[in-house]
């Protein structure tokens, strides 16, 4: 009987965790690559309206315009809707310069295909948006996209 007792059996060997760091590093690199740290902090309220008839935005050729009422901590801009481009608050007259500057940063081949993405707070008045659109027409940036969040419009 002692012959059998000597045998190392019955116990399950521990799982080899030597490759665990490798796996975790792989995941880590994935997330490091996809992470986009926001380069401009929002100074306006930005609760986007809902919509379901949507198309995807092509990021490489887009310029963002934010609009809405001033966010918390930015009371100095008043209570009316304001426009933010990049990380600056802009008024209607300066939109052209700001957008022209951003357009120059795009790849040369995409400059003519620029899409302006409007991220406008749901509580804003339409008047502000149509002022922006009027400026865009003068700049000949006629492709725009109203960014929405998923949902049906009836929940608005």
């Amino acid at each position, binding site marked *: 009987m002692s012959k059998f007792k000597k045998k190392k059996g019955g116990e399950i060997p521990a799982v080899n965790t030597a490759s665990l760091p490798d796996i975790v590093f792989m995941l880590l690199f994935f997330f490091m690559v996809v992470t986009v740290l926001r380069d401009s902090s929002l100074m306006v309220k930005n609760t986007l309206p809902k919509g379901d008839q949507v198309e995807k935005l092509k990021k490489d050729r887009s310029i963002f315009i934010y609009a809405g009422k001033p966010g918390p901590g930015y009371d100095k801009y008043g209570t009316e809707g304001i426009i933010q481009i990049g990380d600056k608050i802009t008024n209607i007259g300066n939109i052209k310069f700001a957008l022209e500057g951003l357009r120059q940063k795009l790849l040369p081949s995409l400059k003519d295909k620029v899409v302006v993405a409007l991220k406008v707070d749901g509580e804003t008045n*339409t008047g502000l948006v149509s002022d922006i659109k009027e400026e865009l027409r003068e700049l000949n940036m006629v492709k725009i996209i109203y960014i929405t969040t998923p949902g049906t419009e009836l929940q608005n």
Partner: protein
Amino acid sequence: MARRATPEVNAGSMADIAFLLLIFFLVTTTIEKDKGIARQLPPKQEEDVPPPPLKEKNIFIVNVNKDNQLLVEEQLMDLEDLRQAAIDFLDNGGAPSGSPEHCNYCQGPRDTRSSDNPKKAVISVQNDRLTSYKTYISVQNELVAAYNFLRNRESTRLFGWNFTEVKNAINEGNYNGNEDAAWEQLKQIQELFPLNLSEAEPKKRGE
């Protein structure tokens, strides 16, 4: 005295460090997928160009006031009913058969007082400056939905696939099949129901 071999560095905590970093990036990551309603603005034009002649019955007027109420073709309407109203208008095909404007693919009521042909039909949206952006987007969304509904119907009838699905697949670059041929067919459908959405200059507040 013989030098001792340097002891191996303990790599056991490597996984912990990596996990810590991983969790940090997991938390900070926002994989932004922006989606929205795409629109092309009309180009800048000269001041005194007369508007193109349009028959009144070919225009579908949606008026939104500052209290976000909808007046569609002179009638107060709820947002839920707008889509169907727009579909009925576009799909009407009121021109009598035999006339050059006859619409042979329309399935609407063929009311002579409504639009002649989807190619002629124009939807005009008039906003007040104080209309909320939410309502504006909702109205645009509903109108685009009406066009998409009709385009899907026609593409299913003619080619057996769904217009919006194929269009999105091509845009995202994962359409399997002949992309150019599909693109041609998409254009064909778009010509059957061209997106004629006009936007009037918004009125001054509360007028």
